[in-house]
């Protein structure tokens, strides 16, 4: 549709004003995080920054023991994203490329599972985790049970997130031409080869979009970690903010700096891979 000049200008004015408003919290976070509390607490937010300093960042890093929490995060997020996509793509392949008795029922189970609020299943899950013994491995599992171990966190993230990914991937795989599998079948390729060498490479765009989205979601997880991790030291970075709360709450600039450190990885990935982020969500919204 062609749009006339004035409505176009009105649209820009509206979007610019609203966009500026939308950026206030994040720009404000960056601005505050470089300023000493002693200055802003007297002059307020809107004042000329006489001093700009990295102190808030180094303080937040040290006080929050953030090196440790980032390490824990990496140990959880990397395997969780890979296993989620691996599991989800296998199920999606099986339900979308073959007809068998329960294929749609299985897909529905996965899709519905991803809609449940995590809090609605946490009571029994917590009890189950308490009762599964684990060997003691430094960093990975130090509590002697599934609760408190990083393996437990990887497992629940995989189990929960595979619902959404299976749904998206199944819809995507359905759109690939059937003839691909048929040709492969005639050539005598096994089901596994069809999955790994034919369907998976063609699913790459959807996998890339989901990998980006899942990285952010698992990185951003707060609830599973808070509920299932025992030692404050073992919390991944996002949920470790909870421990900092008390200490940080007096100095708002320190909180801003801490928040900025925590959101930096997701923001950088977002700015680099914006297309994938948005594509992943759009994939989830559309039917196959």
């Amino acid at each position: 549709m062609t749009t006339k000049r004035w409505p176009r200008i009105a649209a820009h004015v509206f979007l610019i004003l609203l966009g500026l408003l939308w950026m206030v919290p994040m720009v404000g976070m960056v601005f505050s995080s470089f300023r000493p509390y002693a200055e802003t607490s007297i002059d307020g937010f809107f004042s000329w920054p006489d001093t700009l300093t990295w102190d808030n960042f180094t303080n937040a890093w040290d006080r929050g023991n953030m090196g440790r929490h980032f390490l824990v995060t990496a140990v959880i997020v990397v395997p969780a994203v890979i296993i989620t996509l691996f599991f989800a793509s296998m199920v999606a392949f099986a339900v979308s490329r073959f007809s068998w008795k329960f294929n749609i029922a299985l897909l529905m189970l996965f899709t519905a599972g991803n809609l449940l609020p995590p809090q609605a299943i946490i009571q029994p899950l917590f009890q189950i985790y308490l009762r599964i013994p684990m060997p003691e491995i430094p960093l990975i599992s130090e509590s002697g049970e599934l609760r408190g171990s990083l393996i437990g966190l990887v497992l629940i993230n995989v189990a929960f997130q595979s619902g959404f990914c299976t749904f998206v991937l199944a819809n995507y795989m359905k759109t690939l031409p059937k003839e691909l599998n048929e040709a492969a079948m005639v050539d005598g390729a096994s089901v596994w080869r069809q999955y790994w060498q034919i369907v998976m490479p063609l699913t790459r765009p959807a996998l890339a979009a989901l990998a980006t989205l899942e990285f952010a979601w698992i990185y951003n997880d707060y609830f599973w970690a808070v509920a299932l991790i025992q030692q404050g030291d073992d919390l991944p970075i996002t949920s470790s903010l909870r421990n900092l709360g008390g200490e940080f709450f007096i100095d708002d600039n320190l909180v801003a700096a801490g928040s900025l450190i925590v959101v930096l990885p997701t923001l950088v990935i977002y700015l680099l891979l914006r297309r994938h982020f948005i594509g992943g969500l759009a994939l989830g919204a559309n039917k196959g």
Partner: protein
Amino acid sequence: MSTKAPTTDPNLSALAEHNDDTPTPATPRGRGGRRYSLLTSSDRSTITAMTAIPAALHIALVWIPALGTFLLSFTNWNGVRWSSLKWVGLRNYKQLFTVFEKDLYESLLNNLWVMLALFFVGTPLGMFIAYILDKNLRGSAVYQSVFYAPVVLSLAVVGFIWKSVMYSPGQGVLNSVLGRTGSGNQIDWLGNPDRVIAVGGEYGLGKNFLALVVAMIWIHVGYVMVLYLAGLKSVDPTLREAAAIDGANEWQVFRKVVLPSMKPVNIVVLVITVITSLRVFDIIDVLNNPIGTDVLSILVTDNILGESGNVGRGSAYGVVLLLVCFVFAVVYLRNAFSEDDA
């Protein structure tokens, strides 16, 4: 896809050694994929393993606990020893509606405020932005980035950002704009549970809860925008033009043509709105649960993480959460798996 009944079944023709590719009428089995019964036994075990392992994990950690929540809600248990577990029938539920009535209604109402705010403010705004951006405005990608950026942040960090940057009483953006940063006249945005809207005397919308809801809208708008941008692409442009030629104004075209043809997206957005409002937890917990900001998920977890843990009561709250969610999950599934899609 499945509406075209006679499809070539490669296995059948391969087995029957039909080189001429005779179309074999296959049963219209939904996806039009190959029939499982025609695979070799090793291929069958591969498929079984490929689905069984992920499904077992998903069922064990999502669906069995969901069932467990339901069962445990009929018990009184401290969660330590099995021997202390007692069946108490509906007692937990009776208590929810008597002794803990105030907690339950206050929380349900807070969940409802989030739902209403996202539905009546966040969703229309996101939809409107998508509608404008869909007209190929210059700089569309920049606008999209700005509105979508909050969506990639964790709700917990969003809580911290809004607390320290926007709502800080002594130096926050809001109090600075309003000139209320002095020690005598500060507005304590997150500490004041006074009612903005009162409901039935005892209940209402707290000022501090409203402040949290604003931060949630900030995230929701970008999410909705992306979903509708995808939805608008699928609207047939000839329909719009036809309506415009018939003399419909822009609003009428939107109302009568664009919106109805985006029905699948509307349902996804509705379900996401509801599920988001039921899942609210992080932003409240990370701010140490300000007074008057309880929601259902907080009541559930208070009973595992808190001191006075009662697994039975916590589970009963969980069942309330499950039931509300279940209704919308069915709506979502019916949408996602309807006719042509199955």
